[in-house]
C-alpha cells in the first residue's frame, strides 16, 4: 500500500507522549499515590515520545531510500 503505517503510529504516540509529559509536569503530585508515588505520566510520556521518534525516523529513512 502507499501509506507508510509508521507515520500515523509515530504521530499518534507523539501526541500521546506530549499530552502525558505535559500533564505530568503540571499535575498535582497527590494523584500519584496510586502509582506508588511515581510520576508515571511524566516517565511513561517520555518513553512514548522516544517510541514516536523511532517510528518517525524509520518512516523518514524509508522515504529517503525510495527516492
Amino acid at each position, binding site marked *: *500500500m*502507499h*501509506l507508510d*503505517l509508521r507515520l*500515523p*503510529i509515530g*504521530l*499518534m*504516540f507523539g*501526541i*500521546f507522549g506530549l*499530552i*502525558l509529559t505535559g*500533564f*505530568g509536569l503540571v*499535575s498535582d503530585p497527590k*494523584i*500519584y*499515590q*496510586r*502509582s*506508588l508515588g*511515581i510520576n*508515571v*505520566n511524566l516517565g*511513561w510520556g517520555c*518513553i*512514548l515520545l522516544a*517510541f514516536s521518534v523511532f517510528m518517525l525516523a524509520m518512516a523518514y529513512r524509508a522515504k529517503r531510500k525510495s527516492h
Partner: protein
Amino acid sequence: MEAVHLGGVDYVILIVYTLFVLGIGVALKRFMKTSTDFFLSGRSIPAWITGLAFISANLGAQEVIGMGASGAKYGIMTSHFYWLGAIPAMLFVGLFMMPFYYGSRARSVPEYLKLRYDEKTRGFNAVSFAVMTVFSSGVSMYALAKLMELLLGWNFHFSLAASAVIVLFYIFLGGLTSAIYNEVLQFFLIVLGFLPLVFLGLKDVGGPNGLLGAWQGLTTKLNAVAATEGFSPGTWTNSWSHLSQAADNPMGVEWFGLVMGLGFVLSFGYWCTDFLVIQRAMAADSMSAARRTPLIAAVPKMLFPALVILPGMIALVAAPHPTVQRAAATSEKATAFTLPPARGIIPPKVEKDAQGNAVAVLDPKTKQPVPDYDLATPMMLLHYFPTGLLGLGLTALMASFMSGMAGNVTAFNTVWTYDIYQSYIAPNKSDNHYLWMGRASTVAGIAVSVGAAYFATQFNNIMDVLQLVFGFVNAPLFATFMLGMFWRRATGHGAFCGLLSGTVAAAMHHGWTVPAGAASLAKGGWLAFGHPLHVYRSEMAQNFWTAIFAWTTCFLLTILVSLCTRQNKTDDDLRGLVYSLTPHVAKDEHLAWYAQPATLALLVLAATVALNILFW
C-alpha cells in the same frame, strides 16, 4: 473518597485515538478500487504489518480480559494457552500450511476447501463461519458496552452504538487494509498501555528488589492463596509441575488432556484454519511474507503472558487501597466496587437480595464472596493508573475490543461475498458489484452484530449455547485440513462426512458428560438424563476432551469414507493444494539466513521451550 471518573486529559487521549482510527479509514479510501483491494488488501502488505495484525486480530477482548481472569483463577498455568496452545500451531501454519493457502490463490479458507474437496464441504464451513463471526463481533460489542457501563457509568446504548459506528466507518472506507492498519495501531496501543501496569503491579506486590525479587515476592503471596485453596505451594507460579492429576491444580486438568486437547486439537484447529487470522497472512505481498506472518506474530504472542496474565495474578494478591477501591458508584451497576473486594483487589460478583439491595454472591460451601474474575484486569487499571495514564490504559482496553470486532467483520464480509453470495446467490457479476456487496455486507454484518449484542442482554444463556455449538463445529476442522493438505487420497465425500460426524461426536460427548458442579444443561449432560458417563473436574477439562473426541472421529471417518469413495479430483486439480503435488520452496534466495522462515521458526521454538522450562 475518590470517584473513578475520567479527567479531561483522559478524554483527550481517547478522542485523539478515535480520530486516528477514523483517519486511517479516510486515508485508505482512495486505494480501494477492486474487490481484491477491499477483501485482500490487493495482496500488497509487508510481513511486519500482517504479522502484527495477525496477532492483534486475535488480541480481542477475550484475550485481555479473559486471560487476566484466568491468570487470577489459575496462575501461570494460563500460559499454556500461549506456549503450548498457540506457538507450535503458529509455527506449523507458517512453515507448512501457508504455501497452500497463499500459493493456491484461494481468497478465503472456505474457498480452499472448495478447491481441495468440493462444494458441500465449503458450504458447510462458510455458513457456520459466517454465522459465528457476526455473533462473536456482537459478543465483543456487548462486553465492551457492559464494561464501560460498570467502570465509568457510560450509557450502555451509547458505547454499543459508538463502537459499532467507528468500526463500520473505517472498514466501510478502507476494507481489510483499514482493519489491518488499525490492528497494528491497536497492537502498539495495547502493549504500551498495559506495560506500565505490569511494572507498577510487580513493584507493589513483589517489592523493589528488581524483576527476580519481585517475582519471588509474588510467588510467596500466591503460595498463601494456594494454601487456602487446598493446593500445594507453587501451584499458581509453576506451569507444568502440578499437572499429573486433575485434582492437583485449579484448572482441573491433567497433562494428557491439556497437551492433546489444547496443545493439539484446539490450538491447531484455531491457528491453522480460522479465516479471521489466516486472512491477514493472505493479504501479504509475497509468499515469503505470508509464511513469515504467523512467525513474526509468534514473537509477541510468546511474550504476551507477561502483559495479560501477570496483571490477573497481581490483582489476586494486591492490597486494596481504601481511597481507590471504594470508587463512588457512578451508576447503580457499579455496586461491585462499593462492596469490599472478594480477593486481593478483585470485586465480588453481585446479585440482588430479596429487598432488591445489591449483595455479594456467596460460595454455597465456604460462605465466602465469589470473586468476579473478569474484573481483575480492569480493576488493576483503576487501582494503579492516575488520570492521564488511565486514559491511555482504558483506550487500550477499548482498542482490544474493537480489534476483535473488526477482525470478525472483515472475515465475515469476505466469506459472505466470495463464498456465499458469489457462489450461490449471484455468480458472474462485475467486480464492482462484489466490491459494492463487500461494503453492503459490512453494514449488514455490523447491524446483525448489534442485534446479537442486544439479544445477549436478554438471553445470556443463549449466547453460551451458541458458543458451545460453534465449538462443536470447529473442533474437528483441523483433521479435515491436515488430511487435505498432506494426503492426496482424501476425497470430498470423506471430508464432508468426517466434518459432520466430528461435529456430532463433539455434541454427543458434551451431552453425555458433565463438569463437576454443573448447574445447567448448557454445561453438559443434556443427553445423559441425570446419569452422565463421566464427570470431569472442570469445564475446561470437558472442553479439551470434547475436542479430542471430535478430532479423532473426524480424522478416522474422513480416512474411512475416502477409501470407500472415488477421488474425483485429478492430480492436476490438486497441484498447489496438496503437499506431495506441490513443488517445495525450501529457501527464499533473496532473504538473509536469519530472515528465512525456517530460521525464524527455530528461534521462536527454542525461546518457547526455554520459557516453559523457566516456569516449569
